[in-house]
């Protein structure tokens, strides 16, 4: 009798649960329809996270607070061992709270990494931040434009920029990762389609969708996927695809800034022995960068910034193109620059404009522009040497050495500045220019 009663109760409980489950779907749908819920149930969340968020209810906020307090205390005391785990727990307790993900990833990538002196240690923390956002944050919030943008920002600014003393190490470490994946800077999409292991690694470990990468290649040109700009563009594009108008504005800005950066230093020169790491201008991207700016200007939330950025880009591009002996291409940009920049005289020649821009920048050359100036002068020198004009070749050689010396002079007594923003040794740049000339003669890009 007792057994029968127990079975009866069990059946009743199961029936009740079944009805509740059916009703729950409709209730969730209604809550979503009427906008009376802050968040849908966590998507893609593992059972432990769903259990934690449901079972702990409001108490999970208190636990998250306590963990957060511990995390802050440990960070203040200089004890970093637990911070990855604490960030993991805190974010899992609030899996739909994007600010929490963004804060902790930022904290690991920016605040903690810089506390270490060795580049290897710093890179480990930068990776922790990237991994937290990419592997977990996006898993629970797959269509969250803010997180996609933040991830892109890590690539654009932390890895791609040069504000961190260890930025070159980050770039090299990331490039080594991508090199092992793609075997070079340009992914072979046919091979990716054929090779299920590679495809799986790409999509599972790096969350890179080959279809979207191909789309980006079509829209933004032949990017070098070993470099961070391509990845910043990838994540910004994903953010743009799922975000609203404002998110699209932010994403557009990241895209045109990263494209500018890729034009400026988006060509990785590693040498035949793979023993060099030189970032050189990627001039083939010019039409794509122009298109990206034109498109961004059409977006009302990005227009003002895009116009300013475009104007600066045109000035920089004209100088770079001229330096690399592409005067026709540089001349082709002049009408657009004249229409946007009132400082440019309508009657000035290309040479006059280049000189005024270049002289104006004299004291404020960036490392990339300085590098480009030196390398392009060497390029010209080698070109004219091959043409048999020794005098001109010597002149360009002198110019290259002059720019290098002037740029490096204030850095010679400041090892930190030299390490962060200095140029490679002059003979190394000359060798890079020679290699570029050999490549251009053999028809290689």
């Amino acid at each position, binding site marked *: 009798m007792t057994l029968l009663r127990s079975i009866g109760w069990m059946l009743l409980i199961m029936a009740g649960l079944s009805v509740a489950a059916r009703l729950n779907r409709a209730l969730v749908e209604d809550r979503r329809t009427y906008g009376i819920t802050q968040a849908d149930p966590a998507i893609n969340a593992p059972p432990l996270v769903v259990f934690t968020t449901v079972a702990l209810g409001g108490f999970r906020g208190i636990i998250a607070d*306590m963990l957060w*307090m511990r995390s802050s*205390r440990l960070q203040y005391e*200089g004890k*970093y*061992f*637990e*911070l*990855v*785990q604490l960030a*993991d727990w805190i974010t899992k307790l609030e899996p739909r709270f994007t600010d929490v993900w963004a804060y902790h990833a930022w904290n690991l990538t920016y605040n903690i990494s*810089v*506390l*270490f*002196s060795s580049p290897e240690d710093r890179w*480990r*923390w930068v990776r*922790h931040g990237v991994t937290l956002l990419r592997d977990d944050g996006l898993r629970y919030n797959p269509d969250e434009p803010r997180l996609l943008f933040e991830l892109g920002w890590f690539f654009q600014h932390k890895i791609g920029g040069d504000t961190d*003393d260890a930025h070159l190490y980050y770039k090299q470490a990331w490039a080594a990762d991508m090199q092992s994946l793609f075997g070079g800077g340009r992914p072979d999409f046919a091979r990716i389609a054929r090779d299920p292991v590679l495809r799986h690694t790409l999509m599972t470990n790096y969350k890179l969708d080959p279809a979207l990468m191909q789309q980006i290649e079509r829209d933004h040109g032949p990017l070098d996927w070993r470099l961070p700009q391509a990845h910043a563009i990838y994540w910004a594009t994903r953010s743009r695809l799922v975000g609203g108008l404002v998110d699209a504005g932010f994403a557009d800005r990241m895209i045109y800034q990263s494209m500018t950066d890729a034009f400026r230093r988006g060509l990785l020169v590693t040498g035949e022995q793979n023993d060099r790491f030189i970032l050189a201008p990627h001039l083939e991207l010019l039409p794509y960068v122009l298109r990206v700016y034109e498109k961004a200007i059409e977006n009302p939330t990005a227009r003002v910034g895009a116009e300013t950025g475009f104007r600066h880009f045109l000035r920089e591009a004209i100088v770079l193109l001229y330096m690399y002996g592409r005067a026709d291409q540089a001349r082709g940009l002049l009408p657009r620059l004249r229409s946007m920049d009132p400082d440019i005289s309508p009657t000035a020649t290309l040479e006059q404009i280049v000189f005024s821009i270049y002289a104006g920048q004299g004291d404020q050359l960036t490392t990339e522009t300085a590098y480009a100036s030196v390398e392009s002068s060497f390029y010209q020198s080698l070109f004219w040497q091959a043409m048999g004009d020794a005098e001109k070749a010597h002149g360009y050689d002198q110019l290259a050495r002059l720019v290098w010396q002037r740029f490096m002079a204030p850095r010679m007594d400041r090892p*930190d500045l030299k390490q962060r923003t200095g140029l490679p040794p002059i003979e190394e740049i000359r060798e890079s220019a020679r290699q570029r000339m050999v490549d251009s003669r053999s028809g290689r890009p």
Partner: protein
Amino acid sequence: MNRILAIALLSLRSAVRSRMVAVLMCLLVGIMALLPWVIKGDGTISGTIHLLLSYSLGLATTVIAMALLWAGSFAVSAEIQDKTIQTLATKPVSRFHLWAGKWLGLNLLGFLLLAFCGIVTYALLQAQLRSDRWTPDDLATVQRQLTAHAEFRPDQPDFEAQARHELVATPDRTRPDDRSPAERLQQRRQTLIAEFYSVRPLNRNQWTFSPLRGQTEDRPLILRYRFTSSVIGQDAVSGRWLIGTAEKPDQFTHTITHTPRVWNEITVPRHPDWSAKPIVVTYLNEDPGGATLLLDMDQGLTLLAPADPFAVNYLRVLLVKFAQLSFLTALGITAGCLFSLPVAALVSMYILLLVQLGSYIQGMATNEFSLTSAAGIERTTIDLALIAIYKGLAFLLSPLVPGDELTRLANGLLVTWWSALRHLTLQGLLMALLLGAFASYALNRRELALPQS
């Protein structure tokens, strides 16, 4: 004594049979087996070892404490509830013997569980060290981390007396001062401490350490310090450390470019003079950026001397943990003597929760600012009440809050035999017996043989 042992064996058997204790033991095994594989470290061997020691052992100790508190609450209250206590109460067994028997039995259970966790954690640690994930450099780092080091701090002047003397001898009457004498004294004291630990640009500062008497080891010392720089955003500061005696202050010199806010360590070969004479540590601030260097005023400058192998330090930490468990067991049994089972269990768990939150409560009590709603400008009655509650709780919990022994173990700092012995006698024995005396008094006052009891 035989009576106590007999009761002890009975209570051990009863605890082992308890379902709740069985569930907690399963949880314990689960923690020991799974936790090391699911915890995310920072990717270094030091971080991995640190987490293994502090998380696995820390969490295991908490679960054992829960099991013992539950078993302790259950031990007396359940017997009173189902009246089996009457068979004992009618025998010539004193109430204290009854309490002591239960306590001894459950202590034995706690000892066995802790020993199990200790052995498993040690085995996991050894397995980690044998893993081929780590390079020889990693292993050398972790050997240094695991060796127990004795800490030596610089001799400090009496800042309080010095501040008092300066304020009396040379009062500053050149400008109006609306601070109270106590505030002036406190601020002067802080300034003196800051001056003691700071080094101005292109200047030097010296600290004297007592001789390393009784240190027979010849392995090198470690100078450990953390500092901040007066130049905001500066990532590296350069300078030079000199270590020696008053007569020869430069027996060891080390030029360094070090990083603010992180722990910096320098290996210092031991000099024979340092066992007999005070050690003088000098820092020359040679930073071209003009930064003033301020050492961490709480634990800013420490000389670490290798003292004991890891295993010995580990054993002492386990003893300290055992003392804490012994006290919690006593607490559980005492609660069981005072209340019925559900109330006793609830009270015990509440106390355990408070003990676990003890460090936060103490932190909040120390930092009154965090309890003040109006940013410290005007304290409301609620603020004052909150501050009083936190301070009261912190005072009550001070003997119960677990120390930082696990952190010390993981950081390679010595937990002395004296510390272990002090915990065992004070917390594990004396405080527990005090609770026992109180519990037996309460049991004596309680009528155990009434039908409704």
